[in-house]
């Protein structure tokens, strides 16, 4: 039984159909990748699923519950977490604080206890901090813990975002180009990390430009072009699909530098 069901999702921006009638589903432990040329609507699709845009049509069903257009913080409570293509890091906080923020739902408590610095408040912070340190170690950032996040390299920030998203202990994880801007070694590390997370039973939805990575780790691929789903299936099937080849050949020049 699938954990995340996307049913006929669509949205228009000023008369332009950015995404139209897209359906697919993601099961626990599965890595589903959404690929397509630039401007195909991948990030828009992600933003609808994660409650940032209100879909014009269709449904998002999470764990059997209709969560279409639900606020991101409520989705987080239901086990959905995500990363962003254009980094959304808390720049002026330390790396450790960024990771601790991912534990917000576990560590939050009465504001009065926090103002008075009561032991209960400190206990909550402490538990979150321990979890965050373990996560930073997992993504190889433990030594940067006390640094201001804004000073980190792009690749490191990508990993920090993944750590923050993992802190929610999600059932569904949406990763928007987690390897963009990373070198080959970093990409491979992220690769392993994603596979490991999927193995632990998390349903992963991935947008990625690095085709080698997509083909290597995906269990299922959804191909978008001009906002429409043009193909889906396992990596081998999709890479042979004539419509996919046409869509990619048609935009070869654009993608040559990406």
């Amino acid at each position, binding site marked *: 039984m699938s954990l995340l069901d996307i049913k006929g999702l669509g949205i228009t921006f000023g008369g332009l159909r950015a995404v139209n009638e897209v359906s697919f589903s993601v099961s626990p432990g599965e890595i589903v990748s959404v690929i397509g040329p630039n401007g195909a609507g991948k990030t828009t699709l992600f933003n609808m699923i994660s409650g940032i845009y209100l879909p014009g049509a269709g449904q998002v069903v999470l764990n059997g519950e209709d969560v279409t257009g639900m606020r991101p913080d409520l989705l*987080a409570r239901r086990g959905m977490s995500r990363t962003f293509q254009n980094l959304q890091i808390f720049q002026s906080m330390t790396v450790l604080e960024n990771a601790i923020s991912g534990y*917000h739902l576990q560590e939050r408590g009465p504001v009065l206890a*926090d103002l008075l610095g009561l032991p209960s408040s400190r206990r909550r912070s402490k538990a979150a901090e321990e979890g965050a340190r373990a996560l930073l170690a997992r993504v190889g950032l433990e030594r940067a813990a006390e640094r201001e996040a804004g000073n980190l390299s792009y690749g490191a920030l990508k990993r920090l975002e993944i750590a923050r998203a993992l802190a929610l202990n999600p059932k569904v994880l949406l990763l928007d180009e987690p390897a963009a801007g990373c070198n080959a070694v970093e990409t491979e590390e992220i690769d392993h990390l994603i596979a490991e997370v999927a193995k632990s039973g998390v349903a992963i939805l991935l947008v990625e430009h690095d085709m080698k990575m997509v083909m290597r780790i995906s269990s299922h691929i959804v191909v978008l072009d001009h906002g429409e789903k043009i193909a889906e299936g396992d990596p081998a099937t999709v890479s042979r699909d004539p419509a996919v080849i046409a869509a990619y050949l048609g935009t070869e020049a654009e993608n040559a530098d990406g």
Partner: protein
Amino acid sequence: MKLTPKTATLLVLAALVAITPFFFPSGYYYRVGALIFVNGLAVTGIVILTGYAGQVSLGHAGFAGIGGYACALAPVHLGLPPVLAVVLGAAISAALAWLVGRPILRLKGYYLGVASLGMGILISMVLNNERWLTRGPDGIDVPDLGLRGVLKDWGLNLSNGEFWYFFSGIVMILGAWAALNLHQSPTGRALRALHGSEIAARTVGVDVSRLKLQAFVISAVYASVSGSLLALQNKFITPDVAGFMHSIEMVTMAVLGGAGSVLGAIFGAGILTLLPQVLTVFAEYEQMVLGLVMMLVMIFLREGLLPSILRKLRGTGE
């Protein structure tokens, strides 16, 4: 043992409050000191709202007005002791902030600024116009807090100036302590997170509107208590305390000193309270020089005076 920033800040503030009186050439300076601490308290609230949560208010003097007038009116009309009048003022301010904050905190940036400005102006107009209650622009007498008499009975004989200096200083330090607790707490982290990226804060589960509202209410309480202290030590209050200029002053003090840091903002309150006294040597150019100083700080030291100075001292050229 390594000093945490919180302990360090509190030690610096306690030392400043305790030691500076030894250098006072006259009793008048207790008065200036008390004024700095009262402003420092209000500005600490701005640190929570603006420095932590990144929200702007240009109407917080309205809450200072409520706190101040609560001390003038509640003892007379409700028979409350002045101490409880301070609490009542804070409760009314909190309730009003909660009511007003819900709709206006949906707005961002300068829209929020203008909406909060409107709120401040409304409060100040009520205080000016409801003469039957507030006696209007001429102001109204405020009863004595009574605490100095109690201390005297206990054998601690302080002059009026000394009492208000130390009392305001202690309240300011308590306010700083709570703000620093908040900074390192789950709530404080969530506030700073939504300041950094609202969208990312939402995706980690932060209920952004609720958190903004909490920050708004807390900062309103700070402003309210600050207004109460001002009214009580002057034993008199006018609607000016709720005026637009006072709101701007609070924000300017915080931003000039460093809105992200409690110590910085209090430093800003100190500078802007003292500067006009120092600048009297420029006579009629006083306001001009003050404006110039503010512009230069913002152009060259955007983080605010204290954080910029500390960064230079540490030699981290970031």
